[in-house]
């Protein structure tokens, strides 16, 4: 018996949640493009609606193809289950709306994707959910920001824009000390680089649009529950999370934490959040993301290998003022990265070009392989120049406040030949240098 355990990551990436289709024998996961599922009889229908039996009713709530994706991502993360959503933003919204409402408060890392910052700072505040932003490495600030109405601590494994590594063991310990869960956006790292649940996180979400899909073809998100946070105990101790520990009139008076000791959060998220907000994933999107996940281990290894070569090249180039990659000793999160991200720090990073905003534009426009667009985590290499795109309305002082210079360039390193990527960058840097002459 000793030695027997769950399969390894690569095996789960191919098999978790899927088996040959019992109806047809199809080996690959079928795409179940159907809105609804026929009931066996009236009693079966009633028992499905009352959660006396498990099964599919309507594809906004659940779908067999989506369920394979959900189980697979949960397996890779080491979680108890997952919910596929229309986008990563929808996954973040679903996580928050399941346990927070008007009068609730969130403590969040300030090093966030702009879309997440918008949701927390502007949009959710319109609905009465307030957020305090703290620097991810300032544990005293995290602690000081917690209030009686706080419901959640939130951060990214690798924060935007500087790739601050979230100290998940420390922040999760603080959260648990206060009877709170830690939610982590794991988009940049994927479970291949880090499993946040192993370090104490309670909930994880991904923009599956990025590395999980990996091919720049689909928008989607996945919200995963570790099953480790005891919502009933937190309610008993602190009075929080009545949403899960008390009867919910919106679903048969169900007490979700009684129905499932470790799946209460996902039960409510699906039975309320997907049902009422409706940000579900198309089964076709789920299938595309599953295709991507099957090669996730191979792709992530290559992403990291290529990135290390590109980082090394850029760090030694005279036109580059600095490179912000946590594997470099100069990066403020270097020590934490060595501990939490031994397989690598992903393939998205920024570097600062010496020179003017115009030189940055010249650099971008000279690139042939890198695509200039607003996405990351594609198999193709991508580039964006924040000062002339996402942050173009800011003057230099405002850019500095945001941690961006006129020459900051963000790269997402793909799967091409590393030598070709370096040649492309070398040529574009030469042209940028000439543009400043």
């Amino acid at each position, binding site marked *: *018996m*000793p030695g*027997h*355990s*769950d*399969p390894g990551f690569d095996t*789960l990436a191919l*098999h*978790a*949640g*899927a*088996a040959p289709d019992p109806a047809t024998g199809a080996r690959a996961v079928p795409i179940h493009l159907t809105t609804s599922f026929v009931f066996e009889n009236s009693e079966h229908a009633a*028992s499905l609606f*009352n*959660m*006396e*039996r*498990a*099964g*599919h009713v309507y594809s906004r709530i*659940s*779908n*067999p193809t*989506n*369920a*394979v994706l*959900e*189980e697979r991502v*949960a*397996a890779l993360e*080491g*979680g*108890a*289950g*997952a*919910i*596929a959503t229309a986008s990563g933003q929808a996954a973040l919204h679903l996580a928050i709306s399941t346990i927070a409402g008007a009068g609730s408060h969130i403590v969040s890392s300030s090093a966030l994707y702009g879309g997440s910052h918008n949701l927390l700072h502007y949009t959710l505040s319109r609905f009465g959910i307030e957020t305090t932003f703290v620097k991810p490495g300032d544990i005293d600030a995290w602690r000081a920001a917690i209030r009686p109405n706080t419901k959640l601590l939130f951060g990214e494994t690798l924060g935007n824009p500087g790739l601050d590594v979230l100290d998940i063991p420390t922040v999760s310990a603080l959260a648990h000390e206060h009877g709170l869960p830690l939610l982590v956006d794991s988009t940049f790292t994927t479970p291949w680089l880090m499993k946040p649940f192993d370090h104490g996180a309670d909930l994880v979400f991904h923009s599956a649009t990025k590395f999980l899909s990996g091919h720049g073809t689909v928008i989607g998100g996945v919200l995963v529950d*570790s*099953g*480790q946070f*005891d919502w*009933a105990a937190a309610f008993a101790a602190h009075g929080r999370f009545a949403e899960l520990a008390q009867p919910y009139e919106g679903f*048969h*008076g*169900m007490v979700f934490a*009684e*129905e*499932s*000791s*470790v*799946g209460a959060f*996902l*039960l409510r998220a*699906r039975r309320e959040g997907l049902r009422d907000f409706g940000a579900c994933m198309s089964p076709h999107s789920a299938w595309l993301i599953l295709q991507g996940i099957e090669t996730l281990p191979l792709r992530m290894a290559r992403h990291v290998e290529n990135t290390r070569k590109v980082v090394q090249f850029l760090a030694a180039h005279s036109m580059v003022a600095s490179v912000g990659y946590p594997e470099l000793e100069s990066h403020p999160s270097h020590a934490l990265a060595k501990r939490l991200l031994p397989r690598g720090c992903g393939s998205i990073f920024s570097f600062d070009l010496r020179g003017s905003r115009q030189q940055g534009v010249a650099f971008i426009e000279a690139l042939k392989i890198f695509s200039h667009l607003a996405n990351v985590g594609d198999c193709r290499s991508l580039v964006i120049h924040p000062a002339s795109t996402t942050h173009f309305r800011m003057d230099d002082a405002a850019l500095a406040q945001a941690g961006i210079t006129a020459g900051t360039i963000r790269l997402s390193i793909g799967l091409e030949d590393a030598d070709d990527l370096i040649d492309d960058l070398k040529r574009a840097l030469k042209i940028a240098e000439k543009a400043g002459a």
Partner: protein
Amino acid sequence: MDVVFRADLPVYAYAGGKPFDPALPCIVFIHGALNDHSVWTLLARWFAHHGHGVLAVDLPGHGRSSGPPQASVEAAADWLLALLDAAGVAKAALVGHSMGSLIALEAAARAPERATRLVMVGTAYPMKVSDSLLDTSRDDPLRAIDMVNAFSHSGFAAKPSYPGPGAWLHGADRALMRRVQAGQKGVNLFHHDFGVCNAYAGGLQAAAQVRCASHLVLGERDQMTAPKQAREIGQALRATVHTVPAGHALMAEAPDAVLAALRKALS
């Protein structure tokens, strides 16, 4: 629902999403080692909404029930019968899984007039645990949880998942066992529960005392309690055997098939 049992030792039993009515035909569900009531909730909910009073208990020291864990199958059976008294239940069908099936058997033997049915799910007798697994459960319970979890599931894709689509059964069961283990600060509950299973030697004598109809519900791919290991106790009970396409975690892997078997057994 919380059952008034002893004021200083609260006992929890899931009643299927309805107020418990002791006047209805009662079914008591008893979970296995390092589990709690939540392994039964779909089935318990179905029976509660189809004319039964249901008590899916958390055994002492497991889940929401406090107190030290019972030291033996016999002690747990006595505890269960006392619980029925506290809940105002005169007679009940006893349905147990794994370790819980031994407790159901022993309770049906100790109070044969009170057991209307005996259903042993995922069972074996004797329920011997290998020395290596006992040692691992003592020395490295989290490792033992992973081992048992891997042994308890028959594949990577039991559908439609429990308690619903999107649940990863391996991960959910591991999280449950870790949660229940962590709930007992002073006792290595996993080692204790396995020891209770391993030590129980009264199964055949108990079977001779049982008067109600008996049923075995077995997972045809069960590696923890293989169907052949239940043959002797099944014969002693003259039990009807139902097999379902699952491993040891058969309520999670095949909830509809287990429901069908229980409907036959309890009809």
